[in-house]
């Protein structure tokens, strides 16, 4: 028995217990030999047995059916689960006089829908699209198509005829000029020389782009100036490279000519040193020459009392 109860409880906690099994559990708990480990649940099941009628074994379907039909349909309606038939039922109900007090609040809602329904219920969207696609003698419809570039040639002819006629509606007046234009232009072919126009445009742009420079311009001005610039830049770079090359060559060469002695040989280090020494001596000698002169001049100057 106990194992059974445990099984049942297990099922119950998993919400897998059937009504029968729940009844068994309840019976067990309302009895007097409840196992110690089940004591804690006793109050729970006794509560349930009390509220039995109110909750646990409520069959939702049953509940729904116990409600009035209208409530059921309303519930479905709020869940967008109603069929058209059911909605019709609802609207009939609300259109009638015997509306329950709790449904009063929805009357206006369904009343509104009723009105709408009368207006649009016959609206078949597919029908609409079809109608839109097929030839339409309604000018507005044609215009709509025209703006969307969906009009056929025949429809455009219709439009043109309409606009060339005398009975143009006020709202279409604005477009009359346009359709009139199209009528006359329809027969023309495009024989514009695109090349010519482009080159002329380029010439104009080229002229303006130069700005303050005033230069005579041929028709292909832009391309011409680019070439000139390119040639100029190329010339500059060539000259630059030539100049750099020439300058790079201006390095002292080591050649033995005349009395030229270039000392960079290790063996001649000593001689080079001597020469350096002498060069420095020469330098200092010359510098001393200068200072000697200064000194003697200053001493001479001291004798002359310039400043009293």
């Amino acid at each position, binding site marked *: 028995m106990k194992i059974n109860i445990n099984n049942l409880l297990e099922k119950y906690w998993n919400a897998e217990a059937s009504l029968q099994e729940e009844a068994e559990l309840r019976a067990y708990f309302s009895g007097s030999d409840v196992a110690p480990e089940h004591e804690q649940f006793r109050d729970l099941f006794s509560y349930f047995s009390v509220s039995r009628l109110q909750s646990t074994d409520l069959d939702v379907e049953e509940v729904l059916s116990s409600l009035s039909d209208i409530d059921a349909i309303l519930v479905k309606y709020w869940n967008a689960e109603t069929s058209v038939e059911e909605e019709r039922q609802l609207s009939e109900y609300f259109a009638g006089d015997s509306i329950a007090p709790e449904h009063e609040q929805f009357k206006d809602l369904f009343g509104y829908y009723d009105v709408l329904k009368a207006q649009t219920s016959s609206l078949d969207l597919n029908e609409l699209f079809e109608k839109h696609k097929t030839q339409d003698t309604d000018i507005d419809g044609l215009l709509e198509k025209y703006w969307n570039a969906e009009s056929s040639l025949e429809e455009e002819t219709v439009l043109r005829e309409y606009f060339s006629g005398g009975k143009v509606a006020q709202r279409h007046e604005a477009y009359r000029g346009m359709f009139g234009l199209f009528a006359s232009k329809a027969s023309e072919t495009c024989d514009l020389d695109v090349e010519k126009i482009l080159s002329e445009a380029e010439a104009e742009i080229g002229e303006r782009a130069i700005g303050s420079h005033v230069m005579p311009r041929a028709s292909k001005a832009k391309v011409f100036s680019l070439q000139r610039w390119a040639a100029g*830049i190329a010339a500059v770079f060539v000259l630059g490279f030539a100049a750099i090359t020439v300058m790079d060559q201006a390095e002292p*060469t080591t050649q033995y000519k*005349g*009395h030229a002695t270039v000392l960079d040989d290790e063996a001649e280090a000593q001689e080079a040193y001597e*020469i350096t020494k002498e060069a420095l*001596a020469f330098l200092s000698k010359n510098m001393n020459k200068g200072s000697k002169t200064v000194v003697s001049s200053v001493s001479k100057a001291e004798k002359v009392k310039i400043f009293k």
Partner: protein
Amino acid sequence: MNKLFSLVVLLFLSLSVSAQDDAIDKFFEQYQDDEEFTMVYVSPKMFEMFTRIAGDELDVELKSIVKDLKGLKVLKTETNAEQIYKDAVKRIPTKEYEILMTARDEGQNIKVLTKTQGEDVIEELLLLVGGADEFVLVSFVGNINLNDLARIAGKLDIDGVKHLEKLGQD
């Protein structure tokens, strides 16, 4: 376009400035092949060797000067000395070289010029001596501390200048 042009112009300006660096070199080059001239060129590499090779013999104070030197060029002649001197003076780019000292003594013109980098760093020192009988151009490349030079001026063998002339007779 204009920007490009000015950029190119600036580029060449900078290049031309470096061309002035070689004005002295060009001057040397012009005359180094001339048989009338004596030319000596001591390369930077040689100066590096000094400190390694002739270490013991180097006078300490002299060494302090020499170790900063990078190159030495000497050009000397006795023919047309005055003319050459004037030519040399003309060719020195005054933007690069500042006159450190000029003197005229016993018919000899002396000019000492320096090329400095910044305030105290001398890059090159030029010595020009021009007179009726001789013209000498000495170019020291590298830092020369003139104070040190002045100090050892007395120590250096002044007569040793004759060595330079002897060299010309080789």
